[in-house]
């Protein structure tokens, strides 16, 4: 880190910054310029909070050189992480498609959805027993029983299962039935939940909060990794901008940015990201073209009647059409599906 002192900083202010950096275990390179003093600190650890130095008297600003996250960074692990789930590998050559309804509304629905997405070529069935909704009066899932329906439906069609965890108390339960645990956008910064997910032996799909910077998001992933689970999948699903035509604005540039910053696989959820059915397929195609390792797509047999996020759910026919298009795009970017 580099500490730039104010031009009028006194010698004792400079000295107290050096003293503090030195006490924190850093070596300090002092450079007295004609106008101001610059201090280069070597040996800055992830545990150091740079804002502690920004507020010291005489300091103008502090420039970060290293990243605040470590385990999830590309510099920590140069080779890309591949998450091997047996029948599919996320982060390898294949583009992996996770599809299904937002919520497991009924046993019948989830079986129908499993059949439809498997026929179209999806690899993993999504469906949640618990979820967070914007309104407290909205349907929030059937809970434990629906996890069994989900598992049975997936098994019947040789699909894997991805399902949401809302609270630390659900982690063990959902992990018993699902192959991938989804952390929703509203829980992205729930550090208690993230820490709990570090101790579970299942991969975690961490959705991006619409108000999170890429750094915030990677710091959340760092929580999971620091707690012992490095099998993390990052899921881009839009950020809040001034544009109101879609729910959020899909930040597709996050995909190549993350590729550089992190070794973790990156997938995209254009259903949640756009919130509008006819925008889902175009953004799904774009995400794959931008290098996403996979997609999360909401599919519902009676999309208009879906009990959650009806407007963003695709009918099975539209999903099939999207899968056909992906089979053309995927080889063009050097992947397979």
């Amino acid at each position: 880190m580099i500490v730039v002192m104010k031009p009028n900083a006194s010698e004792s202010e400079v000295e107290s910054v050096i003293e503090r950096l030195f006490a924190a275990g850093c070596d300090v390179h002092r450079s007295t310029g004609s106008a101001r003093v610059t201090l280069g600190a070597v040996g800055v650890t992830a545990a150091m909070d740079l804002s502690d130095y920004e507020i010291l008297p005489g300091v103008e600003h502090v420039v970060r050189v290293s990243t605040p996250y470590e385990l999830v960074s590309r510099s920590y692990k140069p080779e890309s992480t591949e998450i091997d789930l047996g029948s599919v590998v996320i982060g390898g050559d294949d583009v992996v498609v996770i599809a299904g309804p937002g919520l497991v509304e009924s046993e019948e629905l989830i079986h129908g959805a499993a059949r439809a997405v498997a026929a179209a070529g999806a690899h993993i069935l999504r469906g949640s027993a618990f979820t967070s909704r914007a309104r407290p009066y909205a349907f929030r899932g059937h809970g434990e029983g629906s996890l069994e329906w989900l598992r049975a439906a997936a098994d019947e069609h040789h699909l894997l299962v991805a399902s949401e965890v809302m609270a630390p108390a659900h982690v063990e339960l959902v992990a018993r039935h699902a192959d991938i645990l989804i952390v929703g956008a509203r829980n992205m910064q729930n550090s208690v939940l993230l820490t709990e997910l570090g101790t579970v032996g299942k991969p975690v799909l961490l959705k991006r909060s619409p108000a999170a910077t890429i750094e915030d998001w990677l710091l959340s992933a760092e929580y999971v990794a620091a707690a012992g689970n490095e099998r993390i999948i990052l899921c881009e699903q839009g950020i809040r901008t001034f544009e109101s035509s879609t729910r959020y604005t899909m930040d597709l540039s996050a995909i190549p940015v993350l590729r550089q910053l992190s070794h973790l696989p990156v997938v995209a959820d254009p259903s949640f990201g756009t919130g509008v059915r006819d925008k889902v397929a175009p953004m799904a195609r774009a995400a794959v073209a931008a290098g996403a390792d996979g997609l999360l797509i909401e599919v519902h047999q009676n999309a208009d009647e879906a009990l959650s996020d009806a407007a963003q759910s695709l009918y099975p026919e539209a999903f099939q059409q999207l899968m056909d298009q992906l089979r053309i795009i995927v080889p063009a970017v050097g992947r397979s599906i």
Partner: protein
Amino acid sequence: MTDSEPDVASELERLRRNIDDVDTVLVKLLNQRARWALEVGDVKSGAGVPIYQPAREAKVLAQVQAKNKGPLGERAVRRLFERIIDESRRLERIAAKEREG
């Protein structure tokens, strides 16, 4: 190609050898200085005095600037000695850490 070129090359080589000789002495002297610094560090930790002594550092910088006769400017001498002091401080810190175990 001109006749003077080989002369330039040999003149440069002669001058550069002089620089190399000075560097050899400089490294020796820097290490001699570092050894004294380590002894100072020993005394400091024996007496429980902090390694970082800003007043002493300021005095060292003032002394070397006062003794400077150029062609290096005062600021240049200060910048060079700041680096020397940075490394002394680092050396003392590492030695103190090793003593602590």
